[in-house]
């Protein structure tokens, strides 16, 4: 049994105090093995994005530990952490700086980490996500949603991280573009041996990209299962069953 690459133990994130106290995530524990792909499924308010942001250090952690490759993550996170863990955000229209060209967006992480051969790295990063060098000096408003998301993925991968956190990477995209991006993510994982933590509300997307998944609701984990089990419909918790039914679409035959 290989040591987990990412281990979350009893993670609790609480916002506010007193009357405003809001428990965004409660006692969340899970592990991801190196090279594995784990899905966090839940609807809005489930706490899935909170967990992701807690890992990156964007949210403070009230209780619990986060261990990366056997060692607790430093708070505040340091440069080696950022070289190991990167994130792809949900909204392609908000995750790229509107006044920076693609070139500037991609050279920023390289500059921060003192990496020299920027031009080559940028061109190869773009090629990896299927964008030609002609995209290098475009501004985000000159790119389509799918292209922006590709740039966001290129930016996440340019530092050659080992763990990629994906926050609903395709929810804001058209169905046809989503398929392209999902295929891209799958290929990249295979090529680079990446570990994925995918957050989504869409069971089918998670089952497609992940081997295991965890269902969250109101900040707590309600069920853990494999993608295989979901495909077979072998789910136990009420809420998971509800999500599975909803996946099938609208049906007038439903008893109300």
């Amino acid at each position: 049994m290989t040591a987990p690459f990412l281990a979350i133990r009893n993670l609790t994130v609480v916002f506010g105090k007193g009357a405003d106290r809001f428990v965004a995530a409660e006692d969340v524990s899970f592990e991801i093995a190196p090279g594995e792909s784990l899905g966090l499924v839940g609807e809005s308010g489930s706490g899935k994005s909170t967990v992701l942001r807690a890992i990156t250090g964007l949210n403070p952690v009230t209780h619990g530990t986060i261990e990366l490759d056997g060692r607790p993550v430093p708070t505040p996170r340091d440069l080696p952490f950022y070289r190991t863990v990167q994130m792809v955000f949900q909204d392609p229209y908000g995750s790229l700086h509107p006044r920076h060209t693609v070139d500037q967006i991609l050279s920023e992480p390289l500059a921060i980490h003192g990496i020299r051969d920027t031009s080559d790295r940028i061109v190869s990063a773009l090629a990896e996500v299927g964008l030609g060098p002609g995209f290098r000096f475009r501004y985000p408003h000159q790119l389509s949603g799918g292209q922006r998301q590709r740039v966001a993925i290129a930016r996440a991968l340019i530092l050659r991280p080992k763990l990629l956190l994906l926050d609903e990477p395709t929810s804001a995209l058209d169905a046809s573009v989503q398929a392209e991006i999902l295929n891209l993510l799958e290929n990249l994982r295979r090529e680079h041996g990446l570990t994925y933590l995918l957050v989504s509300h869409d069971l089918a997307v998670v089952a497609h990209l992940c081997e295991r998944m965890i269902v969250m609701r109101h900040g707590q984990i309600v069920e853990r299962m494999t993608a295989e089990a979901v495909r077979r419909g072998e789910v136990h918790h009420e809420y998971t069953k509800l999500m599975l039914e909803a996946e099938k679409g609208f049906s007038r035959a439903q008893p109300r």
Partner: protein
Amino acid sequence: MSATNQTPLLEVEDLRVRFHLRRGIVDAVRGVSFTLGRERLGIVGESGSGKSQTGRAILGLTPPPGEVTARTMRFAGVDLLTASKRELRRLRGDRMTMVMQDPKYSLNPVMTVGRQMVEACRAHSSLTRAEALEKSAAMLADVKISNPQRVMGLYPHELSGGMGQRVMIAMMLITSPDLLIADEPTSALDVTTQLEVLRILDELVAGRGMGLIFVSHDLELVASFCDRVLVMYAGKVVETLKASELRSAQHPYTRGLMGCIPRLERSVHPLPVLNRDPAWAE
């Protein structure tokens, strides 16, 4: 084609919506034609297909610098292209209304729910304020809101997504319109809430014998909810089919769209990707 043999509720022929922008002309809708009876029609397309602009053009909500032209655009026998402004105001908002995507942006944030509903009610009828309040409360109960009085005193930002959308539906149905255009009514909602809202919408539309145009990017959802589906691509309708016959769709775009969605029933790696044939846009 339409479900009834009366005059069709809505007749649209060669609808075109063109935007004269600084950087050139953008044809958002390029010749869309359909008729609608008292049935549920779905308009499906991706972003840029012109589906939203089609719905807005019918309601006269095309933002400037948009230009709407059509050979025919008739609602319940009234020609929308030549009708007077007064006539149009009588129809739009009263006989035909629209439910939009996100109640956070489509409800007035500085007015309480009750006040907005009363305003919607009294704008098109001669009810007194008390009568309008009563009607609003009844309408909220119709959309399965358990405490209408309390909700009427709330502001839109205090409503959850599902509740906000139900309020929006209540507000848009309060004048008992003949036609409801729903533009991505459930896209901003959680999947479990979506079905609740759709069920409510379904009951109301069927119960009142209304016509419904359901605009969405979700082909499967639309096909499961509507009677007929129009598939749009690059401003044109590329396929019209009965919802039950979705599986036997002919057009490669429709087939491609259905094929590229990941499904739980089968695991397909890699996902088939839509190869856009430029011929579809002609």
